[in-house]
């Protein structure tokens, strides 16, 4: 009997021992291992990463906006320039205008935008690492998802670099760039604190991500309604912007050639096409798919020139865009200076009829001020254009002017296309010819004027001013004051390992 009992007890113990397991995943939630294994969930995580880009740039689904919808990277390109007049009460916007920041701003939007930029980067990092480690689906799709995440990461780094990179837009490759985060956040120890990389290294990473992404992204463009995900064209369009911003100040021909090249590549796309209808801006592009009176917009009505946008349309009433006060003009309004920059009859300028892009806006609030109609009618739900063809055309025109150092014929044609489009037939200004420009500089100036007329309130102007060495609204600032300081919080928590920008 004894051996039997002994063996029973031993067997029982062994049976229980063999089941000793310490890895248990949650049943109601998903973790890295389960998310990145399959295409469906992997893609859903990637879409989550897109929403984080929106949080940084211009608004996202309600539950994704972890801070009030007041400050977005998109706005900072126009606030502080002549495009916008800030109301007296809006203290943080006034600080942006003066480029002088107090603790309120440091703890407020300066930190928020910085942190949510990095949060978006962390999502992208998780996707890249997660798919590489756990992905078990069609390798082509895995590559595409990783490429999209790299595109997002590059876009996010580039946005932060424009805002916080010391000398990033004035060719100082040795200036302080960004803390580089290329792997998922998985816990913090004070001794692991990271310092900022140089501007040059930050750019290098951005360009590396984008160029690596291009071959793996879909080579065919989506129909306009679906252009909220990256394709090769979108990455190339962003590359042209990156090279233009980087190379302008120092007139670095290699970089400017790249800007012209990538812009040219985008222009070759058969699906992204320029529409010269004079009313295209108001009817097809702006505001895009406004959610009004509880009705959903027509998702087929999208301009063919769209390249990449924030899609609020499906989730309309829970996916606000960040430009909440444009229409009501409560914190700021479209300035007279911008309005005066348009030729008479230019539908992108101010007019009392509904054809114009600048109007009175809200008829109940701040009635003496003007509002851009690029955004919604006050409900704050509409798509936001991140990249569209007009920008790429003007980028190519500008880059060609620099690289050829001439009044390049193609550049001139691109300028004329943009310039003459918003006038009805019969009222269009005469085509510009090479003879109209006394110098290449004058030609470039003209392109830049047109660039702001076309792209005002779309997140470009401040960067155009800095990279061309011009003043912001406040005159005479050195370059290192034109950007934002690093949040003071970051300097403190890192015990000074993270250095403040030289202007602050």
């Amino acid at each position, binding site marked *: *009997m*004894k051996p039997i009992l002994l063996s029973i007890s031993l067997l029982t113990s062994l049976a229980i021992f063999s089941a000793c397991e310490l890895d248990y995943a*949650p049943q109601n939630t998903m973790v890295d291992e389960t998310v990145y294994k399959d295409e469906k969930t992997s893609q859903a995580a990637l879409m989550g990463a897109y929403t984080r880009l929106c949080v940084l740039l211009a608004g996202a689904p309600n539950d994704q906006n972890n801070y009030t919808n007041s400050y977005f990277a998109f706005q900072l390109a126009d606030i502080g320039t002549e495009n916008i007049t800030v109301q007296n009460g809006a203290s943080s916007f006034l600080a942006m205008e003066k480029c002088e920041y107090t603790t309120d701003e440091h703890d407020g939007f300066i930190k928020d935008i910085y942190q949510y930029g990095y949060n978006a980067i962390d999502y992208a990092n998780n996707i890249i690492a997660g798919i590489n480690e756990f992905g078990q689906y069609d390798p082509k799709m895995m590559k595409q998802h990783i490429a999209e995440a790299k595109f997002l990461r590059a876009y996010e780094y580039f946005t932060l670099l424009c805002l916080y990179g010391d000398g990033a837009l004035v060719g100082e490759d040795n200036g302080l760039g960004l803390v580089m985060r290329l792997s998922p956040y998985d*816990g913090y120890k004070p001794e692991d604190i990271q310092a900022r990389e140089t501007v040059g290294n930050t750019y290098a990473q951005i360009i590396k991500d984008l160029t690596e992404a291009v071959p793996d992204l879909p080579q065919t463009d989506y129909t306009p309604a679906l252009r909220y995900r990256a394709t090769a064209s979108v990455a190339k369009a962003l590359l042209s912007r990156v090279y233009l911003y980087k190379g302008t100040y120092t007139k670095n021909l290699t970089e400017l050639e790249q800007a012209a090249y990538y812009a040219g590549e985008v222009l070759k796309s058969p699906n992204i096409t320029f529409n010269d209808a004079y009313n295209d801006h108001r009817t097809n592009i702006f505001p895009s798919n406004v959610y009004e009176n509880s009705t959903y917009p027509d998702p087929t009505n999208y301009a063919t020139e769209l390249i990449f946008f924030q899609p609020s349309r499906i989730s309309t009433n829970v996916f606000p865009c960040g430009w909440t006060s444009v229409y009501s003009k409560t914190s700021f309004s479209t300035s007279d200076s911008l309005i005066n920059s348009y030729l008479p009859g230019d539908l992108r300028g101010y007019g009392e009829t509904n054809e114009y892009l600048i109007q009175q806006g809200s008829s109940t609030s701040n009635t003496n001020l003007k509002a851009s109609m690029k955004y919604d009618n006050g409900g704050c739900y509409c798509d936001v254009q991140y990249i569209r063809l007009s920008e790429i055309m003007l980028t190519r025109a500008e880059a060609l002017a620099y690289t050829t150092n001439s009044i390049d014929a193609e550049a001139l044609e691109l300028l004329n296309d943009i310039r003459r489009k918003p006038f009805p037939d019969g009222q269009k200004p005469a085509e510009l010819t090479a003879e109209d420009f006394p110098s290449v500089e004058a030609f470039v100036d003209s392109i830049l004027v047109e660039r702001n007329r076309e792209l005002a309130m779309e997140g470009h102007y401040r960067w155009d001013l800095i990279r061309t060495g011009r003043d912001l609204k406040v005159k005479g600032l050195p370059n290192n004051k034109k950007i934002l300081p690093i949040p003071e919080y970051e300097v403190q928590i890192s015990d000074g390992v993270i250095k403040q920008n030289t202007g602050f």
Partner: protein
Amino acid sequence: MAGVTISVNGKGATLSTSDGTFTLTNVPTGATISFSFIGYETENVTVENPKTVEAIRLIPAENAMREITVVGYGKQERRDITGSVSSVKLDEQKSFLSVDQLLQGRAPGVFVSNSSGALGGANLLTIRGVSSIIGENNPLYVVDGVPIYGTDRSANSVGTSGGSVSAISMGGTSTGGGSLVNDMDLNYSFEQNPLLSINPEDIESIEILKDAFATSIYGSRGSAGVILITTKSGSRDRTAVNVSYTLSIDQPIGKLDLLTGDEYAQIYSLYYPSDTYRSGYNTDWQDAVTRNAISHNLSASVSGGNSRSRYFFSLSYANNESYIINNDLQRYSARLNLDTQLSDKFTLGANVTLSFVDNNALTAPTVYKDAILRAPNLPIYNEDNSYYYGHGLNTKGNNDNYNPVAYANDVTSQSKNITTIGNTYLQYDVTPWLQLKTELGINIANSRAYVYKPELPEEVADLTPNNQASESNALKYRLVNNNTLTINKVFNERHYLQAVLGQSYEIGHEYSSMIYGSNFFSTAIKGIGSAQTTRVGSAGEDTWALLSAFARVNYQLMRRYLFGVSYRLDGSSRYNRLHRFINIPAVSAAWRLSEEDFISYNAPWIDELKIRGSIGWTSQDANNSYYGAQAIYVLNTSSSYGNEQFLSMSQPSNVNLDWEKTITYDLGVDFSAFKERVKLTLDYYYKRTTDMLFSSDLPAYTGYSTQYQNIADMQNQGIEVQIISDNIVRKDFMWQTILNLSHNSNKILKLNFEGNQLDQANSSYKYYAVGYPMAQWYLHEWVGVDPNTGEPLWRLADGTVTTVPPASNYETSTDNKKVCGTAEPKFYGSFTNILTFKGFELNAMFTFSVGGHMINSSRAQLLTYATETANNLSRDILDFWQIPGQTTDIPKLKNSSIINNSDYTSSITSTRFLENSSYLRLKTLEFSYSLPKQILRRTRTFNQIKLFVVLTNVFTVSPYSGLDPEVSAFGSSATAAGYDNLTMPSSRSYQFGVRFGL
């Protein structure tokens, strides 16, 4: 008896086997065989017939304490213990519903506070202070080797709102800093006592392991202390039958002094001159919902055995009424403990308990609270005897306040819990001194909570808690397998080695679901499946596991020098692979001075003097959330990105997440003298907890703002003493006094990046800062009422006295708060006197607590009149300031601290409601009479008949102005303790009982 050392003429020792037999060869006639065993007198027998030796009976050594103490994975004699362990002997008289109540005042270092008078509600029990901020502070309970299921607040709270939406928006004031009055969690949850499933009558002994050496064998769950519960087993000698019955009558310990209907109408008419408050009825709502509660407890057991087997079998039935009407609780429980010897070498056994608790007392706290707040000028019934709802002709009133009598009678809120705790084992005695044991334990807890709120008459159909039901089901089961090897060996009579080496695997599965139904077509339909609208709140299962190895070695040299080493390795599934395993070592040493000649010669009156010390680690898995180390993704169901669904991360990964660690130093003295007439146990301890989880800021470049990190450090130090003195010992008369006294002080040494944090750990508005004890109140200073103007006065941080409430200025509100102390007492303990005369016994136990604080939120609510809810008020309000020069602490009704319906005077984040909660309470007064043996012998049936009367909470002396200084609105939570939020006070109970032994 196993393990007895048997030697012949002092040589050739052998040991007896487990059935007590032994074999010696070549024993010459006339030789002396000696039998020795630790704790017993050595017996010498001269051999006359070399073939057999008559049965030898070893007699316990006269001076040796035979008391056997259960320790982790084993047993030891009390005098051999080198750690700090308190044993609690079971009280034969009083009938308790749960074990924790029984521990109050019984052991030094154990703080127990009856959190409320709610039947079946959880109580607060901490051992040697609070050892975690985020994690549990409840000790680990182990019943016959099976750890019992989660005892923390979150694991035992049942929702009682009954609706898919919060049912009532409660009255009270907006206080510019948060108000507990509006804490939904408090209003709509009931924390059940997890120990209800154990029938205290079945318990043989309770051991409380306090220092690191005692607890480290339980490793990662030992830092809050361990309570070992051992249930009864049968005796081989005889069959015993015990039957006991107790009748109890309970009533609330006190009654709040509230306004009558007429006074109510008068006060509100003064404050709202344009409103009408018609008086006429004077309803005493407190009386309407309370009663003398009658409870019956019947318990029977039979135990016995033969030479090979032992058994203990018990059945019990408890039917308890709450002092709130229509609220009651029933418990049925059964236990069978059995062990049997299969052969010389093999023993198997099982301890199994089944219990069913039907708790119908979940509405009691809500009913109590609503009754207190309900306007007293409203009647209970309409003229047709139907319930009167709403606020009638009063202009203002709480639209949502249900008639509390109707609520108690019509609303169903119950929880049914079926629990099985079982442990089966097989033991193999390899040699008399070496045993192998394998145990399989199981704990199944199945509970179903159901709340049903019937449809109301049409005129009040907009009352929100109406025509809806909710049901939560939970099935939790855990399996524990322990395999141990035990050694008990004496070498050369000088060296005694005791060792246990083992391995354990524990796996828990927790399934829970929550469903809601509303819009029932008829009140006859109760099943949620038949509701017209249904919703699933949650459903899913979680699994966790713990894999451990452990060892403990105790070594004694000449009974004088004792050494112990213990070690445990724990691996938990809740941690990242990098931090999954933790080592928990501890060492101890003791010196039994009384064995030394210089004591035994010079001070022979000393029976026992032992100095012991220990150092060791314990640890805590504070990571309450499952899978805290992994990034978690959730599907966003309310919006999409374009046409695509998307996931967002609800938490990023946290691979650094690690265990909280506590190092404990303990120095203790065990002393007894004068033939054990005086016994003293004294302990000093210092506990330093490091790597406590706390939320701390991250660099913004991580993309996240805060995350739990193992960064906080804290210390606890204290002294605890127990003195047992037999003052008078005569043939027929005995007087014994027992004193337990404990002191603990706590200090945070390190916190997060900022060094302080307000209300991070829970919603109890406590403040944490380096250099202060944890869980401080952080309050605005209330100065009083200006006798000249009747305006409330406040003191700002800079000393200025102002009539502007500091909470009203959002910008500077926090700057003007100050640290105001904690709920933890400076000293607590008990003082017991037992007088025995022949068969009579009188036992009086006082408990006391000195230096703790309480926020009297009850009073705050009963002084709040500036809201639309127009609740009833304390009679104190009648002292409101009326004429210049009047000294009172109630400001004039219309004062400048009431700003737009926000009455800052009744904010609980001010010192106005902070009170000293010290108390001295005659906790129990027991009187019993046992029939004399002579009479019993004549019955030829009974060997015990005992009659007893027990009074509980007889009287209380306390500066606290509320009803009960012991209550805590947050149940078992130690960090959130110290709020009386119209919490049900304890009951005063009268128990009458009889116990028969056959």
